[in-house]
């Protein structure tokens, strides 16, 4: 059994910081990599050492397998943690690590390959007796036409090589099928380099509930309970909670057992997540995510476990540290993802430089963040800036703390999804636990400003007048943001060079 002493973290942002913190709590030496825009990012400064990557585009930075392995060698790393996204579920990378004699902190190549093939995985899971949605294997245009009738409309076209909610098409009527298939196939090739498509039944208003599992290399598998992830935008999760308000104890037990069965069916090893769609009391397994999830902290908060530590121990070959009956859950946890997107303008990505940040704190509040003044938010990477996690003895207490935490938080330099999150956690239906995957559409339906009280309008008007007045009557001399400090430094730099002895 090989102990991990030096861990290379092949990722950035809040998850790289999260993994470094786990290393600090385990006496492991964290080693970082960074693309040019990330040169002064928190994960670079918190790590014991950091190596530059050639350029910002992902293919040249955090997806640059060749360079990452060179660095791992130069760094004397004995393991690599891919975080989530980027190379986390890439079988070729896991294989390359193994060849290079490095532990890959995640499932082995074979498991990644099996889980990556949605169609094959679903068949194996169905054979294990776990309910899945009616659907097809990889289909040609003709086969699709045939089986579509059996599945019934509306239905979904999905990419076999897909994932993360990308490349999914909803087909309402038989007439739309051919064109939708052409469109989907083109996208699948472009996005995943794999033209294969399959069909699946569409549910009008399901809830998205997933189960966290841990599996060691010796075949032991346990689950850590579920996470409700129905608050999504464009199939991207934005708010998660655990336990799910939709489950009865009986249903929870059946779901946990199904998750373990599904994991066993694909021979799963390490930490993973089995995703289900919940339709009333019926549930259907849709896929197994072979990585650490963004929303893992809510499970950590109520179980008291450190999932990154669990991943590292399993990768080392250790048996699971606890048995199913030793898992305990306390209270309720919520996570809100704060992203650099403008919720008042179609959630367009907002790029810029972080000027200042105020993060919430106090009882029952955890913030996982990769924010620091001067950090560029570029178009190259995921817009996730920070995760606000709150805990409460009851769901209501956790919600109240989340309201307070979101009210305290502020980010200057880019626009964020904070207004959307504040709206969501105050929404009566959400507070009642009565919501599904289409909840977030209500934000778009909500006509800007219409909901505004007269007082709020007056406040905005007075603010606008005062801002204009202050700006005219007394120029606020520009505050040197770290970023402008950098630019200035850079300018003086050039002098320095010109004059250098």
């Amino acid at each position: 059994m090989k102990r991990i002493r030096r861990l290379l973290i092949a990722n950035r942002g809040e998850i790289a910081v999260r993994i470094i913190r786990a290393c600090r709590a385990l006496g492991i030496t964290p080693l970082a990599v960074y693309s040019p825009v990330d040169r002064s990012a928190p994960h670079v400064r918190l790590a014991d050492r950091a190596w530059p990557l050639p350029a910002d585009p992902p293919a040249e930075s955090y997806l640059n397998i060749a360079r990452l392995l060179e660095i791992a060698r130069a760094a004397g790393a004995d393991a690599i943690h891919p975080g989530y996204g980027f190379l986390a579920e890439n079988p070729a990378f896991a294989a390359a690590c193994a060849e290079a004699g490095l532990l890959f902190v995640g499932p082995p190549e074979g498991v990644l390959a099996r889980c990556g093939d949605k169609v094959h995985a679903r068949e194996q899971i169905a054979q294990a007796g776990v309910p899945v949605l009616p659907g097809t294997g990889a289909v040609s245009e003709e086969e699709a036409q045939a089986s579509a009738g059996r599945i019934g409309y509306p239905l979904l076209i999905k990419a076999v090589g897909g994932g993360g909610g990308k490349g999914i098409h909803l087909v309402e009527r038989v007439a739309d099928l051919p064109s939708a298939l052409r469109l989907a196939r083109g996208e699948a090739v472009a996005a995943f380099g794999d033209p294969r498509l399959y069909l699946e039944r569409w549910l009008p208003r399901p809830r998205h509930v997933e189960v966290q599992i841990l599996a060691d290399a010796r075949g032991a598998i346990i689950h850590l309970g579920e996470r409700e992830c129905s608050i999504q935008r464009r199939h991207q999760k934005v708010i998660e909670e655990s336990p799910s308000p939709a489950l009865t104890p009986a249903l929870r037990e059946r779901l946990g057992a199904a998750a373990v069965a599904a994991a066993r069916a694909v021979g799963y090893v390490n930490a993973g997540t089995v995703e289900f769609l919940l339709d009333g009391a019926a549930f259907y397994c849709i896929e197994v995510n072979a990585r650490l999830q963004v929303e893992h902290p809510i499970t950590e908060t109520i179980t008291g476990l450190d999932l990154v530590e669990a991943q590292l121990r399993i990768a080392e070959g250790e048996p699971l540290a606890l048995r199913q009956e030793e898992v305990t859950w306390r209270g309720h946890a919520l996570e809100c993802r704060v992203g650099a997107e403008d919720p008042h303008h179609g959630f367009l990505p907002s790029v810029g430089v972080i000027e200042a940040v105020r993060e919430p704190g106090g009882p029952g509040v955890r913030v996982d963040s990769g924010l620091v003044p001067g950090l560029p938010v570029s178009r190259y990477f995921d817009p996730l800036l920070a995760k606000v996690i709150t805990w409460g003895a009851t769901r209501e207490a956790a919600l109240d703390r989340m309201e307070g935490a979101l009210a305290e938080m502020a980010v200057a330099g880019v626009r964020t999804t904070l207004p959307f999150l504040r709206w969501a956690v105050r929404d009566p239906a959400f507070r009642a636990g009565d919501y599904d995957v289409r909840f977030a559409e209500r934000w778009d339906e909500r006509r800007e400003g219409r909901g505004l009280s007269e007082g709020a309008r007056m406040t905005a008007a007075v603010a606008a007048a005062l801002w204009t007045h202050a700006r005219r009557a007394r120029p606020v001399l520009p505050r040197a943001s770290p970023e402008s400090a950098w630019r200035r430094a850079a300018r003086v730099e050039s002098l320095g060079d010109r004059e250098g002895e």
Partner: protein
Amino acid sequence: MMKYTVTGPGLDLQVEVLEAPGGRYRVRVLGKEYDVGWSPALGTTHWWLDWDGGPQDAGRQVLIVEPEGNDLGVTLDIDHLDLRVLPARLVARRRTRTEAQQDVEIRAPMPGLVVSVEVQPGQAVAAGVTVAVIEAMKMQMELRTPAAGIVREVRVQGGREVSSGDVIAVLVPHRGGEDTV
């Protein structure tokens, strides 16, 4: 006392602003006058509004104000409004401005190299706008407009050496707090 017209979706308000001591303001809106505090909260976009006796639950909060073209984007707790603010007595002002104008020469405070000139003749500028960047020996210095106004002349280009006291640009200032940009 300066008067502004604020317009936006479902909004058309006259707001009068008078500076008061202690970084506060007297604000008159919809016929009532209030004591209002306005100060930086975070970065250059977040402001703390402390509106004594203001509307229910709207009185004390952080707002985000960002210019969007000619409009101002104002983001409250949850909502966002695109507003336009104009000096209510703009036209009146314009008439009175011709008299008592005096050009201001902006000069190099020290000998050095003009790194860049950032205004053009005829350009309307607010107070505090950078006119030029001058590099003297080992440091750079930004020359700023002393008040809002119109740039009448620019006498140097970037890359030129200047001596202490050389005129960089000439500004036709507007008057006091009643300037328009």
